[in-house]
């Protein structure tokens, strides 16, 4: 019981303990300040032997872990446990967390450790002190999930869920929400398993009713469990995904839409591209009007112009009747190809080559020039250098042809890339290159008058 009162005091003094290595002048803290001071401490009161040995032991454990000497680390850990009897209450308080962190790490990697050992260790650690119960329970459950012990994990989380200590602090609340959400996720796994079974059963079968009934039970519990957490700002992709899937399955489209909209547009949440992707996919499944889809993707375009959905966005825009949509379609393609990871995206080049011709034929030279102006001083080196011409031709001739066409249109016949590709003599692509040459003659923006 003494632990309890100590930990209450602890919560107040935690702050000044944290400051332990702040150097007054700069506000920056240096974990290595103690070492420097240690070298000059000659006289005065020294640390107690006990404190010296435990801190030495701690560094041995850390060193052994970093050298992957699990056996050695385990041996040191055995000795380190004495810190739980330290007379310094600060250290005694901090000890369980350190022991859990290092101990679980050793047991996770040690080739001779097994699930029982880990479980025993986790159960013991949960009950040393009261501050770590929730954290350790959660991690223990994750360990069990990782090892496929879903039922055990579920039981663990259920225990933790009902656990309360003292006043309900905000951090405790978040942890409990998180525990419930993971529990919900486990229930979702069971549910989706049942769903899979159900799909194999005949609807008239007797078993079908029982199975669908139990599925329904699960979904109810799950929605309660998942609902609370996804209101809290954060990244909750797996929870949102499974929650929406269940809602959709039971026809609660409005509920699902609300969850997704909230997840994507709530300003307190980080701008998570996946939130928009999920919303877009949901709307697509729902067969929402094109306007709606475009408005969702427009926001995604602003966050991640390099997303692979941008090509889909371009297709939507291209088909749109609105002029500014079609203009945006060009912008989106240029935007995708700005990024280093997309330079070899053949679809994007194909789209751009095709769309450029289409737009130029539609007399929208100004659109192209607008996009090109901000890129003309770096795209030639970035995409159309002779290095890339050789490299692309060697690696992917189709890509080289698409790029050559775009290069020819944007830079004229004289550009290095186009000249290199057009000079190549390839049996298969001869016709294509000829067509490219003709397109460039007709559409190049360099000499539009000619």
């Amino acid at each position: 019981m003494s632990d309890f009162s100590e930990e209450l005091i602890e919560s107040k003094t935690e702050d000044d303990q944290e400051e332990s290595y702040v150097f007054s002048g700069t506000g920056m803290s240096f974990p290595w300040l103690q070492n420097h001071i240690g070298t000059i401490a000659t006289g005065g009161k020294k640390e107690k032997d006990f404190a010296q040995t435990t801190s030495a032991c701690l560094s041995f454990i850390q060193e052994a872990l970093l050298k992957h000497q699990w056996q050695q680390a385990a041996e040191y850990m055995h000795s380190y446990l004495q810190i739980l009897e330290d007379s310094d209450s600060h250290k005694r308080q901090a000890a369980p967390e350190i022991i859990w962190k290092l101990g679980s790490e050793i047991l996770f990697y040690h080739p001779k450790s097994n699930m029982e050992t880990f479980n025993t260790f986790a159960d013991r650690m949960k009950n040393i002190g009261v501050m770590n119960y929730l954290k350790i329970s959660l991690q223990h459950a994750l360990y069990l999930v990782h090892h496929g012990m879903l039922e055990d994990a579920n039981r663990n989380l259920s225990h933790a869920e009902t656990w309360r200590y003292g006043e309900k602090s905000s951090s405790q609340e978040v942890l409990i929400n998180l525990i419930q959400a993971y529990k919900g996720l486990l229930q979702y796994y069971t549910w989706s398993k049942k769903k899979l079974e159900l799909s194999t059963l005949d609807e008239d079968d007797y078993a079908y009713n029982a199975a669908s009934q139990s599925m329904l039970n699960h979904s109810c519990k799950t929605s309660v469990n998942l609902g609370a957490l996804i209101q809290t700002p954060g990244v909750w992709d797996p929870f949102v995904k499974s929650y929406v899937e269940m809602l959709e399955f039971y026809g609660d489209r409005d509920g699902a839409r609300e969850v997704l909209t909230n997840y994507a547009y709530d300003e307190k949440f980080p701008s998570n591209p996946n939130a928009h992707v999920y919303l877009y996919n949901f709307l697509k499944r729902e067969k929402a009007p094109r306007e709606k889809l475009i408005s969702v993707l427009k926001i995604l375009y602003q966050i991640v112009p390099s997303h692979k959905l941008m090509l889909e966005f371009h297709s939507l825009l291209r088909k749109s009747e609105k002029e500014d949509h079609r203009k945006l379609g060009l912008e989106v393609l240029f935007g995708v190809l700005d990024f280093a990871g997309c330079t070899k995206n053949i679809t994007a080049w194909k789209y751009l080559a095709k769309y450029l011709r289409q737009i130029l034929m539609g007399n929208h030279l100004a659109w192209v020039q607008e996009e090109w102006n901000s890129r003309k001083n770096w795209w030639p080196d970035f995409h159309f250098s002779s290095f890339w011409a050789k490299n692309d031709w060697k690696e992917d001739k189709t890509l080289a042809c698409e790029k050559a066409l775009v290069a020819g249109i944007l830079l004229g016949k004289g550009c290095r890339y186009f000249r290199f590709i057009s000079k190549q003599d390839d049996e298969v692509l001869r016709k294509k290159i000829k067509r490219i040459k003709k397109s460039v003659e007709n559409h190049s923006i360099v000499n539009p008058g000619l």
Partner: protein
Amino acid sequence: MDFPSSLRPTLFMAGPLGLSNVPDLSFMCSWRDALMLPESLPENSENGGPHMATQLLWEPETPGPLPLLPPGPDPWDPGVTAQDLLFRGGFTFRRKPRAVLDVTEQLSRFLWDHGDIAFAPLGKLMLENFKLEGARSRSKKKTVVSVKSLLQDLGGHQPWGCPWAFLSYRQRRFSILGGPVLGKSVASLLGELLHEELAVRWEQLLLDDAFTGGALAWVPGRTPQVGQLVYPAGGALDKLCFQEVSLTSSGAAQALRDPGHIQLRGPVRQVVTRTVQGETLLAVRSDYHCALWKVSKQGQPAPLPVLQVRKGATGISLSPHLPGELAVCSRSGAVCLWTPQDGLQQVYKDPETLVFCDHSSWRWADFTAHPRVLTVGDRTGVKIVDTQGPPGCGLLLFRGGAEASCQKGERVLLTQYLGACSPEPLHPTLHLICTQFSLYLVDERLPLVPMLKWNHELPSAPLWAQLLPPPRPGCPRPLLLGAQRGHLRLLHLTGEGASAPRLAGHPQSLPSSSDSLSAFPLLEPKSQWRLQERLKAPTIGLAATIPFPASEPVLSLFQLSAAGDIFHQRLRLQADPGATLHAPTASWTPQATAFCSRWLKALLKVPPPPPVWAAPTFSHRRLLGCMEQRTGEHKGPEGLRAAMAGGRLLQQRDLGPLPSAEPPPAPEPGPEDELSARLEAAWEGQMAAWWERQQGRSSGPSRPSKRHKRRTQLSSTFSSLSGRLDLSDAISPPHSPDRASPEAKSQPPVTPPSHESTQELWAQGVPSERQQTLRDYMAKLPLGGDSPRGVCSSLSQSPSLQATSSRSQTLQERTAELPPRRTTLRGAAVSSSQTSSLRATPSRQRASVPSGSQPQRKKPRMGF
């Protein structure tokens, strides 16, 4: 580009650093990162083995890295340590360690070392308050102090760290008299400035960000096995060297040929290299200049423009996308982009820090997946800035705050774009951000929320990182993290395409150069210590390469130390580390140890750095004086002193040739004879008679007058003082008994420029009677530090000469000695004894020893 289809659950909380009511979800251990949530159950139900294929271990081939090149010819000084800067007295253990800058020690060091500057003008003013020798009855005033007795009192005084130092009433009076005048002016003028300077030095000791990014680069050659190391060399790090290195599959790296070099006009702080579209570029950052070279296929650098950064450059990066593009950031808060087409353009400027107010002017800039978008970082956060957009706007990529669960006092030390690594980047949008506590991976498509956080627990500042290509196709990518004191961490990153980046396996620590000590032969303590210092020198650069990407996974790692050494080590990827309990331990090969002893031999040939001038101390004056008077044989202590000064072991040759070979210097028998005679006498009970005899003999052939005797004693004190001067070079200075650089004092002290004022002080009509005392006094003060022996000899040579003439003579000698300001004391002594011998009797000529050999100490009374 693929974005991870499902991100790991993370709480997002806005707020300042160290917000305590947020549960830090990264409280979880590193294994948490290995955990995976099954996407959907059916596929993953059988995924269960506790040891996945992600267990990776790089096994070092030797217990530590080995030097690649012989040590450079320039000596290296480790610089100030915490011991030099912090207050050491009465330190009590406390939970919160506190660093207190010791201004008083530095101030008193200044007073000792440069007493002439500090005190001479005041001393001149106070001349009337001193009673010099022979003027006993002149004044009875309390404001007049007798110099002689003051000196006697001072003789036993240990100026530092002696709690039982006895204060005589004379000293007290002197200090009362002189204290306010002497102390205040210097302290008030210097104190504040000194404190400021010490604070800067201390901060630098805790974190020296000048070399952020690293000053060592590997420029790949035509094959992966051959390349060039580019690094600064020379004592000032202003020589940019290009060393061709070949990596063989059998063992060590070989340096081919002598390195080519380019002499620069400032110290090199950072060397960056990038190969873009087959074109290799090399950028170098100095304090106020940045330069760019294009390296040809043959490895020849061709200069491109040099940029001047007036406020001081803090970071330089080369574009991974476009050849020749360069981002430079300066202490003024400006970030400039240099492109071959448009030249230099400022893309961002903000003298303030990004997130909250921080005094550091360190800035950093790097590229992103978009060639026209840069990251701009400072200690508080990292921002993404579009160089084509309106100025000043941008999006925070990383915020030092609750979003990343930062601790109180946490600051960004390094940011790096990881997408540039060829062949296929992990995620071309990932950025590495290192603080003193943790490592973060942030995706620029999801700002503020770190994709990965790992507590690196490095005991010094992580300032270098390098992401390497996978050692085997399909393997996770090694990420190397290097810290200032040589600590290394190797992490493995996996997660491509639709999966989020995560750590594969437990991170690993690699041996640092101080682990190589065991490869060197055991030495005598002083050289051992020097070697240890050399191996412990802070790291200033890191480069790694995987030379055989196709066949065997071997990692070649180079580390550049501040002493100019490059250490190399090879690591081999272990086949199945999961099966072993004990990680295997490497051992030294005979070739390695042989190489190390050769290297060591070369290192010990490098002269130790010239020491800072050490002040004379008074502590051993009496002791040595007695010793010398009694023994009469001077070779021993002198040899000892010389050996100590030179930092060598005392050997027979230091003690001079064997007694028989030496011409008898004096009629006295040797010390053994003396001892045996004394013992004999004692046995026979005739000790008193022997003593009488001995007294008679040692007081010289002719009994001098009383005053003569006094003078003799003084001058012998003097010679012992000069001896002590030598000795003080070898022992540590008085005020820091545990100061950590014995070799820093091993050379004779450098003569400071002599000061006319001090000469004039005793030249101004001081009665010749008092001059001797005054000279003695001055010789003991630091201001007399230049060639006290010379003064002594010249004076003792010419007792009959006019004081004025000898004075002018000495003055001339001194001015003649001035131009080479760093003449050693020994040299000065020799030259003056030579000049004096011209004036003196021919018998003195024996004392003029050719310089270079140890000058023979003359007997104090021989001049009389």
